[in-house]
């Protein structure tokens, strides 16, 4: 489909294709589960976009088009694995069990994080591109020292692939053979910067130069992403070291709700990718191969709507935090400037100081 050797198990038309090294291990029910996940996170995304348009969120970073990449990877994770996302991994967060309303706390600007990272084994969002990739390798070094059979998966984009931190992470992961899977969602754009400015050749080629395997997968094919991720994670858990997965996909929407992609890319490109929609192709498969009935799909749509409704309610109920909470967790131990700030704020009458 896209040139280059790329692992694909399902065509855009929803037809299975054979691959010499990978085959889908999922039952119809499991595939339906992935379909459901993708529909729900897409709905989460449309609801969030509309909440933003209505002034209820400061910003939203949509994932339309990238659902297969995220759900395929997210469902390949084992419970004991740990994940390090950027700001756009709503699908991963969903798979880790992060409640949707927690995901929106960042975008409602009431938190810089949003969820209990240790509870969900899913780190807080990282906005500075590339930082989390090194953090992930460090976490993986911890796994090694604990002798645990766990893996780390960390996410970054085609743009972030140019950052020194990501490249240093490759060096370290290779040197220490850490149990980490680098999952790069190449959605073709870093805001307005096309992939071609970050690299003239496919990104997954970088890995072998650092001494570990790189693989490109059709990021819009959830079955392929699932299998490729699963194998990389399994290998990492048992000492096989790092893998770079480049999920070749496309950002169907704007970079964020602040962005205007018409300034830098042409409609025709988006049109081409519409035909590669990650949800439609699984649906075709489910209908054709597993004879899934319309009612089942309707049920999922209804479930997604219910989720969206609750999400909206939850978001609207998220009050402006008491300003004095800005002093919480700035430090773990007592700190005179924190005490001073709290005192000043109480004196100013800005906060009841109840916190």
């Amino acid at each position, binding site marked *: 489909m896209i040139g280059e050797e790329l692992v694909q198990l399902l065509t855009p038309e929803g037809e299975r294709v054979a691959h010499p090294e990978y085959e889908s291990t999922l039952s119809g029910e499991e595939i339906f589960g992935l379909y459901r996940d993708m529909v729900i996170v897409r709905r989460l995304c449309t609801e969030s976009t509309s909440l933003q348009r209505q002034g209820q969120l400061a*910003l939203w970073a949509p994932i339309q088009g990238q659902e297969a990449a995220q759900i395929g990877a997210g469902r390949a994770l084992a419970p004991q694995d740990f994940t390090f996302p950027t700001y756009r991994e709503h699908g991963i967060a969903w798979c880790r069990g992060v409640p949707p309303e927690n995901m929106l706390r960042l975008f409602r600007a*009431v938190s810089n994080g949003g969820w209990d990272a240790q509870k969900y084994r899913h780190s807080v969002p990282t*906005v500075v591109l590339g930082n989390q990739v090194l953090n992930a390798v460090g976490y993986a070094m911890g796994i090694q020292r604990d002798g645990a059979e766990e893996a780390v998966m960390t996410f970054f984009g085609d743009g*972030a692939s140019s950052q020194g931190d990501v490249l240093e992470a490759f060096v370290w992961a290779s040197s220490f053979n850490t149990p980490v899977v680098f999952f790069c969602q190449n959605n073709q754009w870093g805001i307005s910067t096309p992939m071609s*400015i*970050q690299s003239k050749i496919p990104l997954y080629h970088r890995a072998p130069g650092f001494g570990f395997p790189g693989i490109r997968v059709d990021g819009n094919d959830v079955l392929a992403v699932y299998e490729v991720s699963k194998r990389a994670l399994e290998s990492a858990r048992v000492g096989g070291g790092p893998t770079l997965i480049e999920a070749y996909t496309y950002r169907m929407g704007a970079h964020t709700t602040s962005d205007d992609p018409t300034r830098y890319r042409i409609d025709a490109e988006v049109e081409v990718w519409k035909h590669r929609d990650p949800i439609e192709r699984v649906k075709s498969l489910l209908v054709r191969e597993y004879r899934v009935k319309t009612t089942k799909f309707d049920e999922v749509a209804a479930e997604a709507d219910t989720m969206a409704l609750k999400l909206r309610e939850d978001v609207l109920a998220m009050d402006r935090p008491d300003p004095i909470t800005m002093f919480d967790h700035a430090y773990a131990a007592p700190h005179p*400037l924190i005490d001073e700030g709290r005192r000043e704020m109480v004196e100013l009458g800005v906060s009841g100081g109840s916190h």
Partner: protein
Amino acid sequence: MATTTMTMAKALNEGLRRAMEKNKKVLIMGEDVGKLGGVFRITDGLQKDFGEDRVIDAPLAESAIVGTAVGLAIRGYRTVCEIQFDGFVYPAFDQIVSQVAKLHKRSDGVYTMGLVIRIPFQGGIGAIEHHSESPEAYFAATAGLRVVSCSTPNDAYWMIQQSIEHDDPIIFCEPKSRYWEKGEVDLDSPPAGLFDAIVRREGSDVTVIGYGSSVKTILRAADTAATEGTSLEVVDARSIAPLELDTMVKSLEKTGRLVVVQEAPHMASIGSEIVAELSERCFYSLRAPGVRVSGYHVPYPPTRIEEDYRPSVDRILDAVDRVMGYES
């Protein structure tokens, strides 16, 4: 005198355009500065008019944006680097501190590090984390650099041109919350030298010094104070490093009272520096200690509560009351 009204964003855009027209060696480099015109549209239309060789869409790596600008400077080019947001300048910190700041010295004056690093800084736009920081003190503390900030469209238009023409490397801090505010721009001559402070409003009771976004807040505080019978003299520092202390000293000798306003936390900040310097220089004139109104010593908070972090009119007036409360 040809004047025209425009936003600060437009003024920067026009200033850049004029600098590029004047000098073929002037380049612009940064993330999304081309077709998009930057996330704030400061470079809007410039790639179209000056070409991809002069307005360079960079791969996504700040250390490289600055590091290659250094090489371009050695080759005789003058690059205006755009850092997309304040919180993303840190990957370039090493290149800025170790090369940009020191290469003129290391080369015994052979290299001219004529480059400008534009940083949209400070908060106030309701963004997510890392988009509202005030990193100016890091650069001000670094010998070899200069740091300036504009607070009006007119300053923006002129200071960006003066910065590009200047032979030392300049960290150019743009108060992003003021990008869309309009003001008069004099197209014929600059309001002052690049490193001059300007008295924005004369007053007699308290000298209030600030820069960037704080200047407007201070002016609003001065309006309120005036209705309460307190007269504030408002000084826009403009140059953060070096500080133009003469204007400040002159003001303090008149008022005897000092408040410094900044969005950065007060620890080891520009505010600390101004207070320390003026405490020494105006020891006999000071009728109260210099007081700082700053961001709090916490990571920039979620922006639903940022207005309680940033110095507000209330907090400025509170500080004014405090310095007025000292016996003289």
